[in-house]
């Protein structure tokens, strides 16, 4: 097994160029999938027999919630790789993840509240799923606050990486909270081992949104990553070429 690809991925100029080239390959499919998913979810899918048109919140709530967990997991893995192998690019990936994850965690909480009011009769309940998701938002904000508070990028990378890695215990807690405790929140209907419990006309737009959001994360991550790579390089000649062109 050759490890050259691994070394190349640690090289800032290579990563910068790769991120620039790859961005449209994530952005355009993401845009098409999200537009298609919105059309399918808002127009083509039939109203739910219990929740009527209120169920359509699922097409923005579930992808946002998925993003909140997937982005955090990516951030924690990147942070761990950065800590263990001292790879700057890995720290740059982790730092790029946080604002993306925080914004979608916020969206997941707000859309969940807007769904909770008509279906459960309350915007908010100190329920295991809701509370652990709120803690996730605080983890993201704590991570960003910690980074903002440390002037030296290397120190910020190491300190925030420890926080990201420790906080990852919250991810399985959020996912399994609806099975471990008696929660208001419904059990998973797509992210489960058995077959999903939805009709195809409702499920396909949801899968398009989930994939579209995931690719969107890739595109935004790549743009942010370029900035974070630049921030970590001091007087490297390759940067001179990039910023002067």
């Amino acid at each position, binding site marked *: 097994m050759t490890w050259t690809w691994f070394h190349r991925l640690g090289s800032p100029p290579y990563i910068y160029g790769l991120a620039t080239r790859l961005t449209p390959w994530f952005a355009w499919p993401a845009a098409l999938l999200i537009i298609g998913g919105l059309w399918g979810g808002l127009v083509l899918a039939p109203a739910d027999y219990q929740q009527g048109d209120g169920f359509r919140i699922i097409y*923005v709530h579930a992808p946002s919630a998925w993003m909140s967990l997937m982005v955090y997991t990516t951030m924690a893995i990147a942070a761990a790789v950065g800590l263990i192998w001292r790879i700057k690019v890995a720290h740059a990936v982790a730092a790029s993840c946080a604002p993306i994850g925080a914004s979608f965690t916020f969206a997941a909480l707000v859309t969940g509240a807007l769904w909770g009011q008509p279906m459960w009769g309350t915007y908010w309940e100190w329920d295991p799923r809701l509370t652990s998701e709120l803690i996730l938002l605080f983890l993201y904000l704590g991570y960003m606050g910690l980074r903002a508070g440390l002037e030296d990028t290397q120190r910020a990378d190491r300190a925030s990486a420890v926080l990201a890695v420790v906080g990852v215990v919250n991810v399985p807690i959020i996912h399994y909270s609806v099975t471990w405790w008696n929660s208001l929140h419904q059990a998973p209907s797509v992210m489960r081992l058995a077959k999903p419990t939805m009709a195809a006309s409702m499920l396909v737009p949801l899968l398009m949104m989930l994939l579209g959001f995931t690719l969107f994360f890739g595109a935004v991550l790549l743009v942010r990553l370029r900035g974070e790579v*630049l921030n970590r390089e001091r007087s490297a000649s390759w940067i001179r070429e990039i*910023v*002067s062109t």
Partner: protein
Amino acid sequence: MSHFFEMGGYAVFVWPAYAVTLAAIVLNVVWARRALARSREDARRRLGVRGEGP
């Protein structure tokens, strides 16, 4: 058409939910591009390079 916007009586919950999520998408694009532009500007100043980049 107005039937569509009424969302079976759930309009006050459905449309704000979509608005918040689409705002998150748009803001992520804006913020990411702004962050990259700032990093490029910082790098340019740090290295004393002149010129306008894309």
